[in-house]
């Protein structure tokens, strides 16, 4: 095992899958440019060339339909959206067709195993329409798989599992995580879709988090440990299907639940997890569930506004303390410096 970056892990997952399966191809705006979607497609472009990695016009909906039509006759297309927000243009194809294909033809039209990669933006004033994260919207619809790798090993493992899956998978990547490093197996590795990961064990409370907020939650948990609070951190990884069991088991042990998501609260993933525990784990709870999500407004651009908009490791740690009735800790601001300056 060696440490590599999240972006390299994505790349390795794609390259090793393409080596194994000649039906895989990758397309989207600028996928074959030297910059290669922040380095995640550069190696695939070099290795497999323009027959299997190629640029596309800006036509998100048509391109998704084209991917479905190719998948219907045996291909495994990967489509890349450098930002989540552009995927809204493809919702007809993703939701009305890809999600329902197998079901609405009674299984008789086969399946359309497309993989859609979309990157969540954050910081440097990317603003209202370049920094949304669409997990709750997409996970609403039966038939889709929606995953959010937070750590490099899962970036590779979820990519490789998605490229073997029998139904469509949406991979929501996080731009801020692209340069983070972690242990990643050299060879093919498969993270199960539909299974959350316990990334830190603890007895004091359960923190369930998604994507970049799992990374922040781990950092918060390290700091909380210095205050004598052992938080258990669950990285959700898969939004649909949802791993209810891992969450309920943890809450059974800790009695407290804090949910942290990269999107908003209302009708969001944090609310879904809260509802799950209220319905199926109520007797385990020793106190109210707490949600941490984006401020309930569109993402602003200006520095002080952006700072007020995003929850951080400090937000998580402070919430955990207050849930446990500890208000007098020594914890100040624990946030790491935000060094992101692009490219976008």
């Amino acid at each position: 095992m060696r440490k590599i970056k999240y972006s390299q892990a994505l790349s390795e997952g794609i390259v090793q899958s393409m080596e194994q399966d000649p039906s895989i191809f990758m397309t989207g705006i600028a996928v074959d440019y030297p910059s290669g979607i922040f380095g995640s497609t550069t190696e695939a472009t070099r290795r497999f060339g323009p027959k299997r990695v190629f640029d596309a016009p800006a036509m998100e909906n048509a391109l998704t339909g084209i991917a479905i039509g190719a998948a219907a006759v045996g291909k495994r297309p990967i489509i890349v959206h450098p930002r989540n927000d552009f995927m809204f243009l493809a919702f007809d194809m993703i939701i009305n067709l890809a999600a329902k294909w197998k079901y609405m033809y009674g299984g008789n039209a086969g399946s359309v195993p497309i993989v859609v990669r979309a990157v969540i933006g954050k910081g440097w004033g990317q603003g209202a329409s370049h920094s949304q994260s669409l997990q709750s919207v997409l996970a609403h619809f039966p038939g889709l798989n929606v995953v959010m790798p937070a750590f490099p090993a899962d970036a590779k493992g979820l990519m490789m599992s998605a490229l073997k899956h029998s139904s469509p998978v949406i991979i929501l990547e996080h731009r801020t995580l692209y340069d983070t490093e972690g242990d990643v197996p050299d060879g093919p590795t498969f993270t199960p879709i539909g299974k959350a990961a316990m990334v830190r064990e603890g007895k004091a409370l359960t923190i369930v988090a998604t994507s970049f907020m799992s990374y922040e939650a781990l950092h918060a948990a390290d700091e909380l440990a210095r205050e004598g609070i052992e938080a258990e951190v669950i990285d959700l990884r898969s939004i649909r299907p949802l791993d209810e069991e891992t969450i309920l088991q943890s809450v059974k042990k800790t009695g407290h639940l804090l949910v942290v998501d990269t999107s908003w609260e209302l009708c969001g993933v944090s609310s879904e997890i809260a509802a799950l525990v209220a319905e199926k784990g109520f007797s385990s709870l020793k106190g109210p569930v707490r949600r941490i999500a984006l401020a309930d407004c569109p993402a602003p651009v200006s520095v002080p506004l952006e700072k007020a908009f995003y929850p951080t490791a400090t937000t998580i740690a402070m919430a955990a303390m207050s849930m446990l009735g500890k208000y007098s800790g020594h914890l100040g601001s624990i946030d790491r410096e935000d060094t992101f300056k692009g490219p976008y």
Partner: protein
Amino acid sequence: MGAKPTFKEDSTSAISLPAETEIGLYRQLIRVRHVEETLAGLYKEKEMRTPTHFGVGQEAVAVGMCAALRKDDVVYTHHRSHTHYLAKGGSLLGLVAELYGREAGCSRGRGGSVHLTDRSVGMMGSSPILGEGVALAVGSALAFHMDSVPRLATTFFGEGTFDEGIVYECLNYASIKNLPVLFVCENNFYATESPMEVRQAAGTQLCERVASFKIRAERIDGNDVVAVFDAATRAVEHIGGGNGPYFLECETYRWLEHVGPMFDHELGRSYRTKEEVEAWMARDPVRHGAARLLARKIATQAQLDQWMAETRAEMAKVVAQAKASPWPDASTLFENVY
């Protein structure tokens, strides 16, 4: 303004096809017509619980096109898709049982009238959201092109689909990639009840638009099965020769209401007149097909009667079979979600 035919009914009199081809086209025409008319009649019993868009009057487009395709060429189509499904060779029991919501339906009662499939004959799928089938066909064509296999993808869509942006995205993509795709527009002058002149600029010629994407485009008489077959054959040759996509605008007319088994005038709808509908019913592709066979002495009236009787018998048997076939079991509700 109203919708008037631009073609003369005898415009294909100079075209001669082998007798068995002419007979095959005609028999398919009467079969599709009879199935649609029978289903429309039965629909009034309210046992088929699925919104249904009948293609009565438009059969020649589907029949002429599909006769020029190979079995492994794929077809994607829209909400008014019974005609294409049958013409491509889709199972009749699969269609009828699907409308009755039965397990024996082509989509096992999960899809209804607007989600038909029969992969065994290349009828990939129909879907009711305008333009989806256009992108799907381009996608399958991309796959065939990548694999250098001699197959093509066809998509049927109405002229209303030209209101959707996705059509232009797909025409552009098919052109720049030189894909083996046949775009078939059924121009029946109305999108639901909205005439084309309120949706598109005055004087719009769809072929001109498509040609601006550097795609060969032709407007033909969609009510003349020989004209359609002739144009489709040319288009298939063009595509098969590696010359890229082809567009056919087929002028035709829908006799019944947009969705449902009735005539518009029976329901008091005024977006088009009874006279206009009757003028188009006089341009009946089935009657024209019969007259052609008789005039050319390819068939006798007795043969035409015999083929019709065979079609009626087949349909009567299949309807009975579909109605008697089992419903899906509620325990299978969650099958095939993933």
